[in-house]
């Protein structure tokens, strides 16, 4: 069963003549770890924007869990929120994902949005902090952290929503060996839990250890 399907999608930015890509087709079954490869400017980030419902294909169809995702569909506030809860997106630059005063509040942001009780929120936040070894950073301001720590906090804040699909844009960029290994372990556990992930990476080891399928743009 496919979690998502792209049927011949094309995308061109307004005011530009050259399309970013044309006729892109892709099927991602539930539980698959798809590795996305491509040179800089090949359209990986644009594709991620489409998958997240931030941009819409100029041609073709994007189907997520059997529903075509269009601008009109996401104009319904309820549908949009439901859709965004199901997809967790880790941006390449974690700085733009951290807008709360404390690491704890950053991770708690999603669960609080979902209307969970403070006990449930606390449980989720603690679990996420343990998972990424950042419990000691709970009271720190995210903008004071190192690049690797910021990335872990950003990922923890995405995971706290318990999405069905995880999209990671160059997750290893700027990480040291230990942080890479920790992240790799988490991604393997994510895969073992039968969850789906799409990862844009140039990392050979990640591709070898995790990738069920590789798509080159």
């Amino acid at each position, binding site marked *: 069963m496919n979690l998502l399907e792209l049927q011949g999608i094309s995308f061109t930015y307004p005011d530009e003549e050259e399309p970013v890509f044309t006729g892109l087709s892709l099927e991602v079954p539930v539980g698959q770890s798809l590795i996305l490869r491509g040179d800089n400017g090949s359209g990986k980030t644009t594709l991620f924007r489409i998958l*997240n419902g*931030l941009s819409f294909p100029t041609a073709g169809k994007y189907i997520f869990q059997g529903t075509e995702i269009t601008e009109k569909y996401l104009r319904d*506030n*309820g549908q*949009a*929120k*439901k859709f*965004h*809860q*199901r*997809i967790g*997106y880790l*941006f390449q*630059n974690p*700085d*733009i*994902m*951290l*807008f*709360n*005063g404390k690491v704890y509040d950053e991770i708690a*942001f*999603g669960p*609080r*949005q*979902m*209307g969970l009780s403070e006990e449930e929120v606390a*449980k*989720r936040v603690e*679990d996420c902090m343990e*998972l990424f070894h950042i419990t000691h950073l709970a009271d720190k301001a995210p*903008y004071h952290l190192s690049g690797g720590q910021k990335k872990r906090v950003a990922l923890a*804040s*995405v*995971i706290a*929503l*318990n*999405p*069905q699909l995880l999209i990671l844009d160059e997750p290893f960029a700027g990480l040291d060996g230990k942080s890479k290994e920790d992240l790799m372990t988490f991604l393997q*556990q*994510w895969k073992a*839990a*039968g969850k789906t992930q799409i990862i844009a990476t140039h990392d050979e080891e990640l591709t070898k250890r995790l990738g069920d399928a590789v798509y080159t743009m």
Partner: protein
Amino acid sequence: MLPNWLTTTEAYEPPKGGGTFAIKTMRSFGHMMGRLQFQQGHEKRHALPALVKFFLLVLAIVFLSWTHQLVALLAYAAVLLLYLSTWPPQDIWKVLRGALIAVVFSGILLAPAMMLRPEGIPNNLQLVCKVFLTVMMVSIFNHTTQWNHITGALRKLHVPGVVIFTLDLTLKYIVILGRFIYDVLTSYSLRAVGNHRKKYKSVGGVMGITFIRGANMSQEMYEAMRCRGFTDDYRGL
């Protein structure tokens, strides 16, 4: 090991209504960024030098403020509109929109005076017309001249380097920080999957990190410039 809640599928139903703050803010910010990018200037290869255009603009504005002849104002408007008509429609609209907003604003400001002294209406309408033409000329100048050429022209006019430096950096960083805020709001909207109970706290957070980001960037850029021999004497490109 993943915690139990993370291995199950979340049966989440978002609450009805509300929570559109981030999306609305993001959309309006996106439009604003589009306008800022438009103001980068699309200079033609054989266009007049920025200094000449700048002089002409100042002269035109001075002449416009002196003239009391309706015919002269209409001639001005005719020439400008004729020139604008050679532009692409979307650019014409962008220039006219700014000028029309200025007209509406000045019209509202002058409305009480026009109501209290009806005999002064022709003069007030002339003033509104002058506002329209001035804003349109500045907008055309802005659109047809690259910013670095404007700063170059200011330098030739012996405007102090520190003023040009401040203007230059302000414009560049408005765009960069604007993009940063847009990205932050995008990531915010992706995680704002319910009703936000404390949205103003998050607005404060977005403003706070933008301020910190701005301060860090300016410090880093100043240090990078010092490393490349910058001695506080700024020369625009």
